[in-house]
C-alpha cells in the first residue's frame, strides 16, 4: 500500500474530529448493542422486502445493487459509508429523504421494515425483537460493518 502523510493541520483536524465523535457518543453505556446483536426479526424483513420492492427498488435495484442514479444498499461502499455511525443515522436518512419524490411518505413502521430488509440483505443476523421505530432509540445501536470477534 502506498503510504501517505497527512499534514499537521489535517492531523489536528482528525484528532479534533475523533474527540468530537467520542464526545457526541457519550454517555455510551447503552451503546453496547450493534447490528450484530439480532436487532430485527425475519418476519419484519419479509414485510420490509415488499415495501422495498414497491417503493425503493425502482431506483436502488431489486437486489439493492444500485441504479444509474442511486447508490447500492449492499456491498463494500454501502457498509463503509455507515460504518461507525448508528442505525438511527441510517433510519433518519431514509425517514427524512426517501423516497426521493416524497420524503416522509412512508410510515415509521414501513421505514423500520425496509431497514430490517436492508440489514437482512447485508447478512446481519435476525433476532427475536423487531427493530425500533424511533431514531433516538436506534441511535443506541451501532452500525459496524465488521463482525466483532466475540460473534465469530
Amino acid at each position, binding site marked *: 500500500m502506498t503510504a501517505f502523510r497527512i499534514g*499537521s493541520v489535517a492531523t489536528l483536524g482528525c484528532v479534533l474530529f475523533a474527540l468530537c465523535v467520542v464526545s457526541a457518543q457519550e454517555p455510551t453505556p447503552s451503546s453496547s448493542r450493534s447490528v450484530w446483536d439480532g436487532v430485527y426479526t425475519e418476519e419484519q424483513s419479509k414485510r420490509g*422486502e415488499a415495501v422495498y420492492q414497491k417503493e425503493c427498488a425502482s431506483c436502488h435495484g431489486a437486489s439493492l445493487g444500485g441504479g444509474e442514479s442511486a447508490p447500492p444498499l449492499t*456491498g*463494500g461502499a454501502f457498509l463503509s459509508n455507515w460504518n461507525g455511525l448508528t442505525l438511527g443515522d441510517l433510519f433518519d436518512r431514509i425517514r427524512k429523504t426517501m423516497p426521493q419524490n416524497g420524503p416522509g411518505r412512508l410510515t415509521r413502521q414501513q421505514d423500520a421494515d425496509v431497514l430490517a430488509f436492508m440489514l437482512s440483505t447485508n447478512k446481519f443476523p435476525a433476532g427475536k425483537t423487531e427493530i425500533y421505530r424511533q431514531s433516538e432509540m436506534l441511535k443506541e445501536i451501532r452500525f459496524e*460493518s465488521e463482525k466483532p470477534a466475540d460473534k465469530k
Partner: protein
Amino acid sequence: MRDRKLFRLHPGLVCVAALALVTPSALPQSQPKTTEWPSYAADLAGTRYRPLDQISALNFNDLEIAWRIKTDNFGDRPEYKLEGTPLMVNGVLYATAGSRRAVIALDPGTGELLWIHGEHEGKRGGAAPRQLSGRGLAYWSDGKEERILYVTPGYRLICLNAKNGQPVSGFGTGGFVDLKLNDDQDIFPDLTTGEIGIQSAPVVASNTVMVGAAFREGMTPRSMRNNKGYVRGFDVRTGKRLWIFHTIPKKGEFGYDTWEKGSAEYTGNTGVWTQITVDEQLGLVYLPVESPTSDFYGGHRPGNNLFGESLVCVDLKTGKRKWHFQLVHHPLWDMDISSAPILADIMVDGKPVKAVAQPSKQGFLYVFDRITGKPVWPIPEKPVEVGNVPGEWYSATQPIPSKPPAYSRNGVSVDDLIDFTPALHDRAKEIAAKYHLGPVFTPPTASKLDGPLGTLSIGTASGGTNWPGGSYDPETHIAYLYACNSCVEPIGLVPAPKEVSDIAYIAGTAGHEVSILRGPGENAGADSPKPPKKRAGSEYVPMNVDGLPLMKPPYGTISAINLDTGEIIWQIAHGETPDVVRNYPALKGMNIPRTGQETYNIGTLITKTLVIAGEGHVTTTADHPRGAMLRAYDKKTGKEVGAVFMPAPQTGSPMTYMHNGKQYIVVAVSGGPYSGEYIAYTLPSESE
C-alpha cells in the same frame, strides 16, 4: 407555474462587478485567463487543466479548508448527490447547488454568498427526468456584459445577469427559453410531464449557447416511443434558436435509412446528455451522443441507428454535420458516449494533428483527426458475437481501436474474478456461472431460470469513464483518465408485460416480477410496480462476495496516455483499499497493494505538475477517521505526492483558480449520511 425567486444578498456585489470591468480580465470568451475556470471543463476543449503551480507536491499535505458551503437550503430538501463543478471568472465563483438547482454566486476567497437565483417550477420540475442540482453552468461575456446560463430541471434555459442574478429581460421571454418548445417535435404527452430535461452544463462559444437533452433511465422504458434528444444552438444575446441537429435523422436526412422499418419515426432518446466540446478557431462542435430507446433491446429499431452512440462533428454557426463516427453500431449495451470529447493538438509520426480524443465507458480512447473525422490510428471493424434474443437485430461487427490499448476492463472472464484466496475465487465463480461471460460487445441474453440469468458485462452502463470525463495537458500531450475497472453490470432481458411496456424485452431477471427502473425523483406514486412474486429458485444474485467486489483489483484506476504515441505511460489504482477488503478476516495479514475503489463518478483535475482527484468511497483507517481523501499524484509518474481529508466522497469534479495571489481547489462532496457541500482548499498564508 413559475414562481421566480431572487435574493440579492450582497449590495457590494455591484462594486465587485464594476471593478472586474476595468481589469484586463474582462476578455472575450475565447481568451480566458488560465488563472480562472470559465467553463465546466475549464475550457471549451474539455481539458480540466490549469497550468497553476502554487499548490504542488511540496505542499499539498498542508492544504487547509478556506471555506465551505452546505447546499441543504438551496431547495426544499437536502441533496446527497452534489455533482457540480463551479466556475470562477472575474473574481466571482458561480455554481449550481441544492435540490432546486439554484444558482449561487460566491466570493472565491471567503465563500460569502453574493446572490442566489432559484426557479420554482411546480409540477413541471417535479416530473422532470433529471432533477437535483445538476453539473454546472455557463459563463459568457462580450467584455462589457456578463451572463450566466443554466438549464432548470424542468428544461428551461435561464439567462442571468452575472452581476446580480437577475434574469436578462432581452433573452427569450423575460430571461428564459422554454426548451420543450421549438424543438422540431411535439413533446408528448404535454409540456408539464413530457419526458425531456438535462443535468449537464450548457456550453457557450462564439455567442452561441448549446444545449442537449437527457431522459429517464433507459433500461426499462415504458414504450419504444419517446421524445428525441436533439441538440440546439441559441443566440446568447437574444435566446433565438440559431440551429438544430437531429440526432435521429428526419426523413430525407443523412442516416435515416439506418433505422429500418421506419423506426426513426417513433424511437426517441439519442440525446447529448453530457458535455459538448467546441473548437472556436475551426468553428466546429463535437457532440457525444447517447443510446436510442431502449438501452439493452433494439428489436424495435433494426439497423445501425445513426447517430446513436456516435461522435458527431457539426458546424458551430449552422449545426450542419461535418463528419461522424459511430462508436457502437446498433447500441445494446448502454455505451452512451458519456463525457466531453477532448481536443488535443498532437504530433503523430512527426506530423501535427488537430485531434479529438473520446474517452468511453468501454475503456477505449477513440482518437480522430478533428477536421476530417479520420481515425488517427486504425479503428477496424471486427466480428463480434451475435446473440439470440427473439426479435433483436445484431450488427455482426463493431469498430475496435488498434491504439491506444483499452485502459480499463471491458469484458468479463473467470480470470478477472476475485482471487485473494481460492475459496473466494470459487464463490465468485459460482456467481459468474449463472451468467454468460465474454469480451467487449458480448450481447445481452434473455434471462432464464436455468441459466444464463443474463450477460455479466463490464464497461457498459457504469463502467470505464463516465460523465466526469478525463483531463488533458496541452503542453505534454498526455491525457489522464479515471476509469471504473470493476463496475460489473448483469444484463438480462425478460419479456415485458403489456401493462408495463410495449417493448418486447426489457431489463430484468427471470423469476422476478418486471418492474420499471427509475432515476431519482421520478413520479414513484403513479405507476408503482406491484410487490414481487418470486418463484422458487429465483433468489437475487449479489454482485459481490461477502461485500467484496466480484472482480480482482484494481477496482478503479487513473491512466496517463501519451496521445503522440497512443501508449499508456502509467496506470495506478486510485483510492484507498475499501474497508471491507482491509478488514475481511481471511485477508488479515496478506500484503494487498492498494486496490482503488469501485465507483464511476470520479473526475480528475490537472495542474502544472499534479493530477488531483478525490476518492469515491468512505474509508476508516489508522491514518484518518471515516471520510475520504483528496489525492494528488505526480503527473509524470503517477506517484502519490499528497492527500488531504474530506468529510465525504468526491461527487463533483474538482476545479482550481487563483484569487488574490492564492490558488484554491474546490470540490463537491456528498453521499451516505453527508448532504452536499462545496469545499475550497488553499495553502496557509505565509504569516501562519
